[in-house]
Structure formats: C-alpha cells, structure tokens
C-alpha cells in the first residue's frame, strides 16, 4: 500500500508509520439506497484505510460523502455491504456504544448550547464512567491541545465563543474519550480562509502526535492536499475516481475528472508538499553561491518556497541555510526540474 513506501515529506513519513492509537477501517461493497430514490446514493464502495492514516473524501456536493461517512458510525444504516473497524463488524455492535468509540465532528459543529464548554467536552467520558477528576484533567488537556486557554474557556457557553473557537471545541469534544477513529465532516467549513488555514495547520500538528485513523470530508482540494495522507476523489454515488497520496494525485491525475479538481499549477502545488531536506535524498546541493547574494531558504522550507525565492530574486539558484544557521549549499533550478522529472517517472523514492 502506498502509505508504506518512503516519501519525500518527513511529516508524512511519520504519519504513515505504524500507529499506536489508530485502528484500520475497511468498507466492503458498501451501499445506501434511500427509500423512494431511483439510484443509490452510495453504490458498492470498497476501501481500506490503514491504522493511523488520515484519508480525505473529496468530491462535489451531493456525491455521497456524508452518506458514506455516516454509515461508518451507523447514523445511516447501510442497505448492503460491510464495515470493519479493527476487524470488528460494525453492523453487529450496539450503535450507541460504537459511537462512543468513534469521534464525530459534524459540519454544523452542533455544540450543546445549554452546556458549558467543559460539559460539552466531558459528556462522552462521563457516559463511559470516567471519574470526575480524570474528566476535569482531560478537559484541560484537550483545551490546551486545540489552543484554547482552559482557565478562560472552560466555563463559558458555546454562544460566548466565535465560530472558529466553536469548531476547535467541536474537535476537542470528538477527541474527548481518545477514540481510535475520527469522522470529520467539513469540520473547518464555517471559518474564513485565514482561520481555516490556521486550524488546518494546528490539526495537522495534532494528528502527527495523535495518529488517529481519520476520515475527513472536504470540498476543498487544497485542504485535502494539506492534511491528507491519502485522498479519495469521489464522483456521483461515492464512486472512487482515484484513491492515492496527494503527491500522486497532483502528479498523475487518473482522468479528466480528477484533473478538474487538481486545477491549475499542479506542479507548483506539489512542490509545496516537498521540503528542501526531503529533496536532498534525490539531489545533491551545489556549492554556496559566490559572491554571496543573500538569497536563502531554510532546510525545512518547501521546494515551492525555494522556487519563489529564485523568481523574486531573478536568479536560478538559492542558498540553503541549515538549522545551525550556516549555509549548507545551494539549490539550482535545474535540480528542481530534475526532481520533478524523477517524481513524474514514478521513482519510488521521489513520490
């Protein structure tokens, strides 16, 4: 499976490593036919998701993303097919107990307005019979995790929070009982682009620590690329058009439909996923520029940033600064082209 091959992006490699927390999910010929509708909303979808993997469902409105996701926690009963979580047949479990072990973030957030933030987050742990002190501790921990000061927000009510803050609480609430699986339906939908990007970055950092198995529904290709280990591009009836890493989808869209999601500047976007440090596995840095021209990027910067720096300075190479501040060498535009060519050729090391 693609998540086991080495990748250029270091953070992705960590994510794809065997997870301590997540469990695998398998959908087998999953189908939903709503009563009174001619065609099924979801038609024989099969997919395997590795433990600790974050999979993005990407597709147009009405293609069945929500329906597919809600069958996994049985908010919608499948018409036929099977769902296995960690090998267990979900359809044989008690729905309420199942749901307590699956974190669920709905698009409209759905915080309970009559409960404080602490009560919202503590609800599932309370149902699971945790002790008061353990719940209180967990609430503080989770608020810290999503970047809200517990001493300020704990006793507030949802209506006293901004939309973005509410979405963070929604995520914290879903994480409360430390579920191995998370289902997230456009969790950052209701925020402006800047807050959204901020939440995405925070969530990505969070996931690198937590390594849950996550299904994340989105309309937004950039969000899918930024967060996903793999992206499932869906068409009508949840049919899988392509299910692969962001790098592969950017480099080689399976068909015109997938290409239409990728849109323009695919090469540049893909270079945004690879850091200079990762590129060093494929290309060798040249000597530091002489005379020094002062145009530098960090080792951790993306290749996209490196290209940007070259363009802005009107030069074909840029110096690379190591973590200790010294110049490690220079990256030339030719080398970027070579990197791209080898990735296109599908060399396993250059995904």
């Amino acid at each position: 499976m693609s998540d086991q091959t080495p990748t250029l992006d270091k953070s992705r490699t960590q994510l794809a490593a065997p997870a301590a927390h997540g469990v695998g999910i398998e959908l087998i010929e999953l189908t939903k036919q709503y009563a009174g509708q001619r065609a099924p909303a979801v038609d024989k979808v099969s997919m395997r998701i590795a433990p600790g993997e974050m999979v993005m469902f990407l597709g147009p409105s009405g293609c069945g993303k929500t329906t597919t996701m809600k069958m996994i926690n049985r908010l919608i009963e499948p018409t036929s097919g099977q769902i296995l979580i960690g090998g267990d047949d979900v359809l044989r479990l008690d729905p309420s107990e199942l749901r307590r072990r699956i974190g669920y973030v709905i698009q409209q957030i759905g915080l309970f307005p009559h409960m404080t933030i602490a009560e919202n987050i503590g609800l599932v742990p309370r149902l699971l019979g945790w002790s008061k002190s353990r719940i209180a501790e967990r609430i503080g921990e989770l608020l810290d995790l999503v970047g809200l000061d517990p001493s300020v927000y704990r006793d507030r009510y949802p209506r006293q929070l901004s939309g973005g803050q509410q979405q963070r609480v929604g995520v914290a609430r879903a994480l409360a009982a430390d579920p191995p699986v998370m289902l997230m339906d456009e969790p950052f939908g209701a925020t402006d682009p800047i807050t959204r990007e901020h939440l995405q970055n925070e969530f990505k950092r969070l996931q690198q620590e937590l390594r849950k198995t996550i299904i994340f529904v989105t309309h937004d290709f950039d969000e899918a690329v930024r967060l996903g280990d793999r992206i499932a591009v869906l068409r009508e009836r949840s049919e899988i058009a392509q299910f692969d890493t962001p790098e592969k989808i950017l480099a080689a869209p399976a068909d015109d439909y997938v290409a239409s999601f990728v849109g323009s500047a695919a090469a540049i976007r893909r270079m945004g996923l690879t850091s200079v440090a990762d590129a060093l596995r494929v290309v060798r840095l040249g000597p530091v520029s002489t005379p020094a021209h002062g145009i530098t990027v960090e080792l951790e910067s993306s290749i996209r940033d490196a290209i940007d720096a070259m363009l802005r300075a009107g030069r074909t190479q840029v110096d690379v600064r190591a973590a200790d501040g010294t110049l490690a060498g220079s990256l030339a535009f030719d080398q970027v082209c070579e990197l791209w060519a080898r990735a296109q050729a599908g060399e396993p090391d250059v995904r």
Partner: protein
Amino acid sequence: MSFLEYVEYNLDDLVRLAAEHLLVVVIALLIAAVVGVTIGVLTWQSARWSEVATATSGALLTIPSLALLALLIPIFGLGWTPAVIALAIYSLLPIVRNTVAGLRAVDPAVIEAASGMGLSRRRSMWQVQMPLAWPVIITGVRVSAQMLFAIATIAAYVAGPGLGNEIFAGLSRLGAANALNKAIAGTLGVVILALAFDAAFILIRRFTTSRGLRV
C-alpha cells in the same frame, strides 16, 4: 360594613380560601405538565400525531366548564377530585402545543451531534432536547396557569376548594348584607393570586433554564 372592614374581619377565611385556590391550581398544573409534556414528547416527530394531540387538547378546552364538571361528578363525585381533573384538562393545550413547538425548534445539528456521540434516544431527550426546549415548554405552563386561576373559581360548583366559594356566595345573595363585598373580595383575590404567580413564574423560568441559553 365597608369593603376594607369586611376583608379585615374575614381575613382568616379569605387566606384559607386563597391557599386552597392556589393549591388546586398548582396540583392541576403539575398533573397537566406531566401528561402534556409526555404527549408532546411522544408526538412531536410525527406531523400527524402532534396535530391530533393539539387538536384534541384544543377541543377539550372548548367544553363549557359547567358541562365538563357535570360530566365528571358521576365518576368522581364532589369536591377536590373533579375540580383538579377539570382544571388539568383545560391546561393541556398550551402545554402540549408548546412542548411540540419547543422540541421542533431544537437545532437538528445538535440532535445529530448527540446521537453521533453515542447518546441513546432517551438520553438525548433528557440531557439535550428537553433542556433546550424548556424555555418554550415552561411558557406554555405559564399560559395555562393564567387561565386556571380564573377557571378554578367554578370548582365551587362541585363543592370544591377555592375563592369561587366566596364569589358565588356573594353573587347568589346580591342585595343582602356584605354580598357585594364577598364577590369583590373573591374576585380581587383571584386576580392578586394570578399576578403573584405570574411573577413567580419569571423566577422559575430563570432558575430552570440553563445560563447558556440566556447569554
């Protein structure tokens, strides 16, 4: 005897009658609240059944009070029982209607979140939907209470409790000494009780509604 002298002279009796009046209303309200909210909870999801429930409790409200009492006497005899039952029947409509309206007004996203988190239907109702619908439900109870203080006067016709006894005793002997005083004292008593109870309701509503819904 002036009105004030009359009141002063008969204060003990008047207070006892007012206390009875209050008690019969409160008992009837409690019964109607339990029954009405239960009916609302059972029917709110079905357009047809909630319509049946409100239409039926509305129809009950149109039965003339004396006729209803006359119907109840053969079954329950005289006194408190038929009075309480008649009053409970009359207060059903606002409670049922507001329970249905309150539960329907709960954001479906909140209900979905509750079941998605693993709350059973019953738990979701008690821990989430009911508290959110509560301000609307309690307003229905308040409207019923306002009606009941006036209607409760007719309890006197079935030898029941309350200020109705004072009013009808006066009205039936108009022209006799103190008859008018009696009727006025009883009527004023009902009005004062109703206003005081309404004020209390504002406090009850405040104390039983989550602060999160008021911010």
